[in-house]
């Protein structure tokens, strides 16, 4: 058993915490930093079933996705266009309580929902459940592009932790990494469009 497997519980708890922080934080710099840290721990959990080189490639793809969104935000101003939906209660206390409830539900579900997957480790399955639960909660709270993008990237990260145990082919890994980058590009495009700047894609 390698140290990655031995201390996998650390990564599992860390992804739960980073997932929760992504919902609770409003400062976009902190959100992107937390997302980058989350990618490190996601790579750790993915590394339980994939060779280290492939895991490193996934980490790099994740960090590039963060960088793409960061560049767009730097262009429009980090605090620009921060919108809070009026219809959904989104105060800090409400979000905190929701996060706690969803985390409890995720602990309850635990690894049961991945029972059909034969090779997934317990900690990886908990990590995947935490991330998908937090990502879904994030999508439920916000319609602001950065938050939606971060929510989607969180869900896909959770999905990848589980899916790589059953489909470790390089082509699929590459395509899933491209999905991360694609979502980051789309979110950046939406941010730049809204700010009135002509994004690169439009020529």
């Amino acid at each position, binding site marked *: 058993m390698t140290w990655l497997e031995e201390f996998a519980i650390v990564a599992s708890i860390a992804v739960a915490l980073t997932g929760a922080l992504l919902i609770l934080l409003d400062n976009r710099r902190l959100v992107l930093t937390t997302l980058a840290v989350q990618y490190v721990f996601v790579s750790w959990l993915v590394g339980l079933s994939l060779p280290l080189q492939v895991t490193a490639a996934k980490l790099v793809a994740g960090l590039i996705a963060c960088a793409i969104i960061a560049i767009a935000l730097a262009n429009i101003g980090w605090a620009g266009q921060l919108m809070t939906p009026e219809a959904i209660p989104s105060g800090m206390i409400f979000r905190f309580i929701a996060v706690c409830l969803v985390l409890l539900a995720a602990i309850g579900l635990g690894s049961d929902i991945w029972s059909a997957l034969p090779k997934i480790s317990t900690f990886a399955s908990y990590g995947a459940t935490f991330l998908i639960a937090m990502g879904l909660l994030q999508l439920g709270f916000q319609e602001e592009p950065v938050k939606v993008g971060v929510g989607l990237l969180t869900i*896909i990260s959770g999905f990848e932790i589980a899916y790589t145990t059953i489909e470790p082919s390089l082509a699929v890994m590459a395509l899933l990494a491209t999905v991360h980058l694609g979502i980051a590009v789309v979110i950046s495009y939406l941010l730049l469009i*809204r700010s009135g700047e002509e994004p690169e894609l*439009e020529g």
Partner: protein
Amino acid sequence: MSAPFVLLTVTAVLAMGVALFRNRPRTQAAISAIGSALLAVFALWITLDNPFEILGFAVKITSTWLVLGRALILEESNRAAVGFLYLAGAFIFGGAWVARPNRNLYYVGLLCLGSVAASFLIQPFLFAALFLEFTAMGAVLVLVSSETPARRGGLRLLILYTLAMMAILIAGWMLDNLGVTSATPELAQRATMLLALGFAVIMAVPPFHLWLPPAAEKSNPYALSFVTILLQSAGLFFLLRFLDSYTWLRTVPGLFEMIRWVGIAMVCFGSMLAIAQRSFSKVMAYALITDFGVMLLAVGTGIPEGYRLALGLSGVRVVNLAVWAMGASKILDHPDDSFQALQGAAYRSPIGAASALIGLASMAGFPLTAGFPGRWALLSTLATLDPLAGWAIILAFLCVCAAALRWTNALLGSPLDERIMSSTLTEKIFLIGGIAMCILLGAFPQLLYPWVTEAAAGMVQLFP
């Protein structure tokens, strides 16, 4: 050199080439349309795996392209579908400049076309879900632009397709690796539920239609038409491939009945809301949901004639939406497309108004329009199989026609101002050509249906 490599590389090169002409929409439209048409010809008629001569040079085009251990294969079973896709693309790009869509439509549109083509070519075909996700990403860029910056519809589309991708990938893995058959009911139920969730999103089954109304309201009509045609055609082929590849799926008790019930619900939901809309674009959004419902009713028959009708309806939708979108783009000259704002639009742009209304009437299945023959044939098929579904189609016809009449009344009302929206001769030719095609296909459906239904001829289990 392999055929999938040629198809996808040339598509990418075309997309880059089109981007160079960003201020010349006619050139962009011409390059995109001609390029797509040539790629369709290539997909349909190129000799695969056997050497042949071009200008004295011996050439051999192989059918398989291996990428990182996975294969993209152009073969008899999918080449007609790929050809149909590129021809539909050529048709849409050809008329696009009349509607003045945002510039992304051409080059991102070409990339989307390539992505959907890749979803047809990839083996195992389950990974098509990933390419549909890429298409959805491109669709967001087509829908949202600096001219139409509202992003709610695009974001919802991205969220829903991401969830669908994950559901289908897990379901696909279960089907391939866990030995799911009708003899393992618990596993079969899980896999079917995941598949149902994935396809409900792809087919815009309420409540997963949430992206469509905001996108219709705020995006360029032509951009919306392009996205809808592409995503729905890809989704339908994907669904049929599932039904073709997993025989047990077709034997799941009540599956086709469930599909018909979903279709009936969509038809009722879409038609009721279409008639209640006070925004012209949203009428089309709900008419589209009705149309998807009718298509599901055709798939839900569970017989080859039904699948053929579903494909035919999918082909007709290309014409209906293009005609509607060209006309709607002419009469919607500002973001407001309410009843009051469009009053008298038929006087400002008579051909544009006629085109928009005929497109909508054809979507409703009005006699002598392209949408009628398919619905009539489906009605005949369902009369014995499921009369309730037949009544749902009649309800859809009545409601969407009533909506079309209501908007005709508005467009023919007294104009609020004296403005005239002039069209160039070429624009008039395109608009009249679209209207003529809509009526021609209504009178002579044999010009389109047999050809479109050939697109799925390679699915030997479904079309024995």
